[in-house]
């Protein structure tokens, strides 16, 4: 699971986190996290984002509040999380037990030319989540910590927030469908059945 840099391989990490996912609903932030979850296997329970930078965690919150019996996982990048960092406060106050957020932190803006993000300069997202009041957190750098991370995102005693430091190397693009109406409708149908398309 380690890349040549000695850091976690982002796609192997994603594969491990999504193993035995059951009915878990997954929101992926735009860019590499969206390609990662798609590479592991595109399905109706995935919402890979193409835009709305800074909104991934809040989409997870709205979904978790709407479906308190379903586990919801947000996988996103450090740049995306930093753009919507206030969401940590909003989520901490709401305390959704079924919501987990995992930041795959490569310390760079990977889609725009690998410019550095603040997390490479000492900004600690786990400390920020703790400061917001999110009590269950993890900071992961090693393969032998990944099984505990997997257990935590499935435990249902959230809100749970983790940062996994990952290798910055870009992976081959594996693109999900680009039609947003399809992505939304298929997840709604996965949650509510065909009745989803007749909701008033």
């Amino acid at each position, binding site marked *: 699971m380690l890349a040549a840099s000695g850091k976690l391989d982002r796609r192997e990490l994603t594969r491990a986190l999504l193993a035995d996912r059951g009915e878990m*609903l997954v*929101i992926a932030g735009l860019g590499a996290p969206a390609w990662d979850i798609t590479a592991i296997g595109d399905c109706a329970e995935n*919402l890979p*984002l*193409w*835009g*709305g*930078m*800074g*909104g*991934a*965690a*809040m*989409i*997870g*919150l*709205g*979904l*978790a*509040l*709407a*479906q308190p019996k*379903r586990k919801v996982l947000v996988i996103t990048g450090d740049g995306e999380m930093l753009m*919507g960092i*206030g*969401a940590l*406060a*909003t989520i901490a*106050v*709401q305390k959704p037990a079924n919501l987990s957020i995992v930041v795959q932190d490569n310390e760079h803006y990977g889609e725009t030319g690998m410019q550095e993000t603040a997390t490479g300069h000492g900004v600690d997202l786990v400390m920020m989540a703790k400061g917001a009041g999110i009590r269950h957190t993890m900071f992961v750098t090693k393969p032998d910590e990944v099984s505990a991370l997997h257990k935590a995102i499935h435990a249902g005693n959230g809100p749970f927030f983790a940062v996994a430091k990952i290798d910055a190397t870009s992976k081959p693009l594996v693109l999900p469908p680009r039609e*947003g*109406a399809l*992505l*939304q409708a298929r*997840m*709604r149908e996965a*949650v*509510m059945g065909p009745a*989803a398309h007749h*909701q*008033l």
Partner: protein
Amino acid sequence: MDQHAIDKAPDAAAEWPDQIYSLLKTHNITQVALVPDAGHSRLIRRCLADNEMKVVTLTTEEEGIALLQGAWLGGAKGVLLMQSSGVGNCINMLSLSIMHRCPLPMLVTMRGDFGEFNPAQVPMGNATQTVLEAMGTLVHRADTPEDIAPTVNATIRLAFNTFRPTATLIGQRVLGAKTFGKD
């Protein structure tokens, strides 16, 4: 309401905040996302007192666009309450609603509008309708108390029946402009 507050809350005799609350119940709205505005203060209190509603106080209004995208993915209906200045914070995030065809009703109390005192409110207040429409939102104004409930009703229906962002702008003429004792 703090009489020294800068924003104006609706008059105690005004019926429209309670009418909006009734409409939210009629339409099975269960997530209420907001950044507070004095104009919405009574409606917010009604929602907070309702155990069937999740009131989510946001750190910035664009969080509400994303929250309600998630709500709809899970089959819950929501509404976003904010002041006109908050509309400016929402612009790019509205891409989510358009891209996914997500119903998104917004109820906006106007500042920088009819008889504004504070110059800082005017640039965004003056641009509110234009920028919402530039981002594909269907916008209707309500400038009299009697107009508010039917306009809000239409805004909620239009969002959930036709899958898009919609907005009611509640004019400052309804709320009255704060004058800081200079009237």
